[in-house]
């Protein structure tokens, strides 16, 4: 956990006061909607179909039990008793009132939580691996660097009115769980041959209507030069990014139009002028931030203790263990994923009661810490293996132990037309219906790892381009239709999916997905070949033939 100090707390209180004043000016008419909208957006406040929506940042996906409990309180007091975890390590409340927003924000601010820069044309909540600090794979804790970027970017005077939103993600493990190649800036933290810590810098990735995989513009940036280099990127983008067309304003279009090489050259030139300046990070500064992260006081424990070995005789526990428990860097500990995808429920939603249960379990077994991942699941990153049976029993009782992590029913879905003012089609009911078709755990385990991502419009909040199966809702003559893509992936081998064929109406989507899966089961080289590998080996044609013959 990063512990806020008196500076952070003072800033948050000032920010709440600022927003309270802005809301008052809006309600009085001193600000019109055009003037107010960017201000509310930069506090995470949207106006959706039925109500205002408040998006709260969970910086680099790390949350304390105390903070989660406060979110439950906000859900109960100011909303309808639930919240929705998003693909960008945020949580959204869907039914909040403008009049009550300053109060809700003050309640969140008291525990160091806020909606700052979760929307608007600014540097957004910096995201990273939900297993940060716990996984044996990483070269350093990426949250240190995400926190440095959070501080740097908060209310940045120069970069608050960029051409468009700006998303930065950091990965520190060879396996990328933060989807860095589809962000405006992706940072791959690694050590060079000399053992020094630094970043590979990728720019111009992104989804939306013009998806791109990011391009590498620097193979190794010494870690201490992070801020000056980011400032150079931001300054080039702020001046030269397109502002004539909202759909061409993201940095990916600038990089695409002038070319990654020319873009890199402009950045390097700007960087040369500022790299020795005020943003140069000294070892002391880095140590200062690092020192504010509090790590659990791990006990000396053995892997696979007797309690665990005994519990594994229970088939239901063993199934959950095999699916939702992952290796930890400390012997005797595990990382636990909590699926927010119980079959038939809206993906990523948690009730206030469930939030309280998870907060209590984090207190009891997990050093008070909870994580949020871009797959819209939660995670308890530090669980002693001897506590796993008791943890599982409690999760199971609360409906939070569905062992479907990374299965076909572990679907990423945006809120879609059921909530969103931009959407063309629904996403959540499509996800629910697909999950029902694959509710049989033996069947879905047999299928293996398969990511289905659903977006209700071309803005791609459901990351459909990088789903192994991607589903995009479109509108045709007032009806909901869905385009299917295959072969996308968001990891270190990120690539965009290939269109399978013509869009199909709402009712046909679940059946079509079943046909795609059946085709895979027939065509795969063996149980070890994942869906994504079969598509890579054969292309989409065999799927297309089978699926469209059936429909």
């Amino acid at each position: 956990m990063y512990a806020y100090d008196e500076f952070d707390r003072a800033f948050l209180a000032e920010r709440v006061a600022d927003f309270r004043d802005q809301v008052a000016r809006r309600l009085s008419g001193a600000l019109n909607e055009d003037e107010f909208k960017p201000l509310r957006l930069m506090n995470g406040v949207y106006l959706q179909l039925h109500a205002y929506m408040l998006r709260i940042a969970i910086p680099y996906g790390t949350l304390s039990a105390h903070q989660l409990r406060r979110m439950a309180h906000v859900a109960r007091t100011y909303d309808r008793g639930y919240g929705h975890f998003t693909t960008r390590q945020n949580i959204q409340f869907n039914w909040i009132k403008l009049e009550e927003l300053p109060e809700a924000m003050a309640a969140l601010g008291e525990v160091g939580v806020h909606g700052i820069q979760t929307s608007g044309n600014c540097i957004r909540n910096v995201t990273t691996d939900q297993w940060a600090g716990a996984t044996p794979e990483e070269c350093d804790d990426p949250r240190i660097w995400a926190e440095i970027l959070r501080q740097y970017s908060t209310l940045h005077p120069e970069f608050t009115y960029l051409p468009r939103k700006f998303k930065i993600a950091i990965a520190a493990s060879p396996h990328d769980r933060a989807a860095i190649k589809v962000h405006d800036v992706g940072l791959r933290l690694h050590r060079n041959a000399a053992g020094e810590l630094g970043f590979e810098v990728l720019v111009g990735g992104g989804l939306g209507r013009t998806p791109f995989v990011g391009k590498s513009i620097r193979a190794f940036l010494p870690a201490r030069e992070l801020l000056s280099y980011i400032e150079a990127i931001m300054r080039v983008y702020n001046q030269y990014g397109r502002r004539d067309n909202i759909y061409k304003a993201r940095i990916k279009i600038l990089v695409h139009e002038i070319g990654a090489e020319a873009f890199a050259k402009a950045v390097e030139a700007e960087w040369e002028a500022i790299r020795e300046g005020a943003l140069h990070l000294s070892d002391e500064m880095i140590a200062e931030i690092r020192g504010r992260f509090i790590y659990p006081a791990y006990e000396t424990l053995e892997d696979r203790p007797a309690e665990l070995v005994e519990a594994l005789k229970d088939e239901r526990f063993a199934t959950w263990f095999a699916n939702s428990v992952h290796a930890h860097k400390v012997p005797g500990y595990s990382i636990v994923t909590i699926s927010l995808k119980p079959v038939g429920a809206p993906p990523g939603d948690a009730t206030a009661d469930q939030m309280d249960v998870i907060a209590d379990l984090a207190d009891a077994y997990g050093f008070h810490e909870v994580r949020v991942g871009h797959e819209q699941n939660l995670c308890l990153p530090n669980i002693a293996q001897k506590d796993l049976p008791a943890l599982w029993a409690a999760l199971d009782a609360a409906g939070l132990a569905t062992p479907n992590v990374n299965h076909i029913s572990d679907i990423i879905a945006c809120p879609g037309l059921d909530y969103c003012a931009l959407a063309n089609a629904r996403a959540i009911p499509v996800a629910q219906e697909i999950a029902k078709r694959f509710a049989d755990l033996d069947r879905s385990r047999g299928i293996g790892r398969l990511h289905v991502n659903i977006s209700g419009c071309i803005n791609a909040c459901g990351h459909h381009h990088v789903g192994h199966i991607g589903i995009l809702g479109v509108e045709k003559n007032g009806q909901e239709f869905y385009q299917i893509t295959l072969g996308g992936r968001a990891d270190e081998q990120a690539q965009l999916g290939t269109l399978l064929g013509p869009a199909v109406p709402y009712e046909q989507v679940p059946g079509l997905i079943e046909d795609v899966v059946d085709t895979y089961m027939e065509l795969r080289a063996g149980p070890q070949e994942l869906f994504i590998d079969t598509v890579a080996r054969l292309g989409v044609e065999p799927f297309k033939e089978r699926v469209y013959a059936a429909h």
Partner: protein
Amino acid sequence: MPLIENGHIVEDKYVRVSDEDALPEGVPVLVGVDRFLKEAEALKGRQAPVGVIWPNNRPIAEIAPYLGQLSLIALNFPIFRDGRAYSQARLLRERLGWTGPLRAIGNVLRDQFLLMQRSGFDQIEAVKEADAEAFDEAVHRYTVFYQPATDERPSLLRQRLGRTLTGAAR
């Protein structure tokens, strides 16, 4: 429109002259970039001060050769959401060494005053009278600043560091 300088509403001494009109003698003038660049040589001989409105889509580095003959630079916010002039302002101050008056003009609103001040503007031409009157409040809303910018406000990175190095209580 009220002009704010160093926190006070002041009279604008500059007369804004269009490209077609003759320049009035003996008074400070603010002219557009096209006219300025065309007449730059002739304007050197002028006794009264000359300011230029530099558009936000022209690289600010191109102003460098003219800094010596300018008394005012105005940067434009065609709409408050268009933030290009923040970068121009910082480059003028930090890269090109401009120490003269730097004015924000256009769709300039209260909630951007602080950002403008932090980016190096010392003159702000507000759209709304009420905003101008609230200037002091608007730029003192925050006492905590995370990142270094053009202004003299200390940034948190360094404040925290100072505290650590002096061994103050955590």
